[in-house]
């Protein structure tokens, strides 16, 4: 049995956090939430996290700034895989996310089954 993986969902919309949370919890992941990049950085200081699911447009600290900050941390934090989620779908947006340190990028709307599948892949626990 795999130990349970913890996923940090970062999105400013509580409805969206709940939408992702119910999907991921239904697949056996443990989910913690943050409503912007600043809160997410704080969560990373106190909790072991195996995957970041990060929206881009958020108040106080957007997702890409957050990812850049994470990638500059110590190796343990900097190597947490990150799945970026956004309604933006231009090539420039993909490139910016890649440059900030994203491991994968899903364009909203994201099917719940697809989210679970990609979360499993990035955590190394196939679902």
């Amino acid at each position, binding site marked *: 049995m795999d130990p349970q993986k913890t996923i940090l969902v970062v*999105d400013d*919309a*509580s*409805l*969206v*956090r*709940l*939408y*992702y*949370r*119910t999907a991921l919890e239904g697949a056996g992941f443990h989910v913690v*939430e943050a409503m912007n990049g600043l809160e997410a950085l704080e969560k990373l200081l106190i909790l072991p996290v195996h995957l970041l699911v990060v929206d881009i*447009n958020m108040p106080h600290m957007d997702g890409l700034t957050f990812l850049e900050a994470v990638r500059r941390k110590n190796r343990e934090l900097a190597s947490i895989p990150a799945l970026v*989620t956004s*309604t*933006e*779908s231009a090539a420039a947006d993909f490139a910016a996310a890649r440059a900030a340190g994203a491991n994968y990028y899903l364009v*909203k*709307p*994201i*099917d719940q089954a697809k989210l679970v599948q990609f979360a499993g892949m990035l955590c190394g626990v196939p679902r």
Partner: protein
Amino acid sequence: MVFGEAKRYYVERRVLERMSATGSGTFASYFTRLRTDAQGEIEQFVNAFTVNETYFYREDHQLKCLTTDLLTERIRQKRKGDAVRIWCAPCSTGEEPYSVAMWLLENWPLVDEYEIEIIGSDIDTAVLEIARAGIYGKRALMRLAPHLIEKYFAPLGAENWQIVDDLRTSVQFSAANIVELAQTRPYGQFDVIFCRNVLIYFDDASRRVAAENLFENLLPGGFICLGHTESMSRISPLFEVRRFADAIVYQRPAAGST
């Protein structure tokens, strides 16, 4: 609100309740209290008269219509990430706006593609407090499948359940009297308004004022859902009636149409 002779018993019951709650021995002493608004009695009095009988997923055919037809039509003119605004007025103790949020999570796969804003308003400030707390008994949950209760509620003692935090914070609650334009106007314009089972309690003049106010609160092309026994066609000619597979809904004509 207008109560005819047939509602005499209902009115008497509420007045007696308030007399008893305020320790007024006679109607005269209670009436003085009411007229002078001692200790905010007017608000308490209004609260006692508003009807707060509701439950989750009530009239769910309209919720089905919301995701199958209404939002599909509304988002045609939107871009990804745009706001989708829904107003439940009145919202009573919150079952309806929370039902809308739950229904969207369960049945609208675009829930993360738009910025969904759900607002619940009511004239009765006491029910808004209950709505914000999001704590419900068995009766309110009777229509919900067990897996929905497990997903969106946390048990609170043996008899109650509380809406999970993320759902609670996804709905905003605030006071508004839909007959007062000064109170409805600040809410701006919505894609869909649920105004169920309240206009039946108004007299003709108030009904018309409410309909005109709500018309202003709709985006061009926006929809309003009434209770299943109510008809906007009897109240106001401003709206177009639309028949969808699951519900009859009234629409503010889109800009440019006649």
